[in-house]
């Protein structure tokens, strides 16, 4: 039995949460992606995915599935439609901070991924290693250790939250004609030194946990 049933909750309790999200999602045209680019599928071709799926994927509630917003949206954004430029929000810091040190960051991304899977929402966030768009932000690059990693998303409120959570990141936004342009990157090898003393009673998250979130079509993350 679901726990909340045992306690009286506020009126919000049973509210299907993504209804609130739908309007903001609807306003923007969703961009055409190859069918295999939804995060779950995209991931399934990579090593870490079966585990991700097994661990994080819960079958969606029937009521949530019935919302069926995403399929409508997909219908309205046929690939034939001309893509409009859209705004991308990002937070950026050095790669070690983003991918190696901030382990809660990994948990947040996997949680969001699971949630999008449950609610049939199309992925709208990516991790970009050494993004090309940084060239447009000299004010940021001069304060940035390299290689840098950016979290990029079209969801402005969520990025405001991510800035609040990560804190030690620089945030800004830009407009791009299409996803490919927005997520363009320079290839670079990542290599994190092992922490001098690892005192946690558990192992670190595996190198490469971020691969499911790299731009669609990007080959394995360096290394």
């Amino acid at each position: 039995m679901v726990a909340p049933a045992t306690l009286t909750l506020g009126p919000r309790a049973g509210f299907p949460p993504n209804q609130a999200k739908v309007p903001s999602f609807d306003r923007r045209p969703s961009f055409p992606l190859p069918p295999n680019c939804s995060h779950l599928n995209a991931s399934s071709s990579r090593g870490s995915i079966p585990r991700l799926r097994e661990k994080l994927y819960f079958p969606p509630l029937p009521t949530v599935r019935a919302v069926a917003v995403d399929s409508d949206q997909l219908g309205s954004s046929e690939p034939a439609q001309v893509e409009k430029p859209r705004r991308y929000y990002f937070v950026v810091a050095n790669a070690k901070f983003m991918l190696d040190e901030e382990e809660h960051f990994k948990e947040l991304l996997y949680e969001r991924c699971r949630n999008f899977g449950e609610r049939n929402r199309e992925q709208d966030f990516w991790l970009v290693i050494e993004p090309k768009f940084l060239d447009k932000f000299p004010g940021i690059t001069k304060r940035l250790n390299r290689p840098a990693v950016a979290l990029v998303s079209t969801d402005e409120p969520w990025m405001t939250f991510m800035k609040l959570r990560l804190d030690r990141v620089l945030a800004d936004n830009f407009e791009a004609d299409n996803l490919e342009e927005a997520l363009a990157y320079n290839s670079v090898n990542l290599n994190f030194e092992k922490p001098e003393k690892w005192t946690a009673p558990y192992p670190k998250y595996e190198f490469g946990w971020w691969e499911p979130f790299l731009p669609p079509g990007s080959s394995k993350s360096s290394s």
Partner: protein
Amino acid sequence: MAAAAAELALMKPINPISKSRKGGTLRPHSSQLRVLASSQSGATAAATATATAPKKKKSGKTEINETLLTPRFYTTDFDEMEQLFNTKINKKLNQAEFEALLNEFKTDYNQTHFVRNPEFKEAADKMQGPLRKIFVEFLERSCTAEFSGFLLYKELGRRLKKTNPVVAEIFSLMSRDEARHAGFLNKGLSDFNLALDLGFLTKARKYTFFKPKFIFYATYLSEKIGYWRYITIYRHLKANPEFQLYPIFKYFENWCQDENRHGDFFSALLKAQPQFLNDWKAKLWSRFFCLSVYVTMYLNDCQRTAFYEGLGLDTKEFDMHVIIETNRTTARIFPAVLDVENPEFKRKLDRMVEINEKLAAIGESQDIPVVKNLKRIPLIAGLVSELVAAYLMPPVESGSVDFADFEPQIVY
């Protein structure tokens, strides 16, 4: 608020024993817990009976409860809260952050997460003897802590509705999470044929009053330390599944993301009230709350090493990991934190544990009360001096980079 995190002995961290007696706080196993209808196996019945049998007031040793620092219930100055978050009075409020947080809470990531399965009851039936007792205590304390968060957030959600509907709704959604957590833990107790009487708790427990700014510091720390405790247990058990004694720990990974987000909300509340972050008083209070929370957890956990050892953890190593990580997290918002990575800090904590054990021994001895109190005096003095010394250790300057005057040339 997670588990032990809410066990803040904030104002009086000094002597848990005398406090729990003097304050006449409820003894969970005698009054808050009730036995569910029938128990099947003889062993179960026996264990349940020990856990719930009415205690004779005089009996010195009751195994797990005597030195218990029960999780606290909080209340605050709701009028001041209304003032602080009134958007008309307080123009500087960063509503964008609150709206972003509201969005996150509405998403309700764990809507379908807390679903039980038959494994729970099977695991509970397998647990016998002292371990069973310690698990009951763990569930009960955790449930109480989550429930205390539920009550506080629920009331704040109600009271702030008019002056700041966004902040109010976030509080309501956080109370949803806490209720869900408390309910799930209480269901866990039913595996042990027990149930916590939450209605009774609401009425009968004492409430600790904190001014709003102290609620912010205390609940921020409470949520973040709760996250670090849960994620550490989860990841440890994932790597060492042979210690997975009870399935509730499998839920901790998603569960503690709620705690972490609750902490983020208090971070945003503090940022919206820079007067609580930017002066010397704020720095002193920050250090004080860090110390209270860390010491309380350390002393509490060191009284319950059997629980952590049962999970395959070294209690002190576990606690130090949680303290160090919580402190690093807290350094992103509090203007000053403690230098917990200095080995001297742990040495001080360990000395406090020794003193606390001696205090506990006096409590359990057969001496008459006057003698007990006399014996306590030098120990309490020793504990106080350790606390003061820990408090006065050179702190670490910190804070959000949004107010980065502590390090203007910061490179990311």
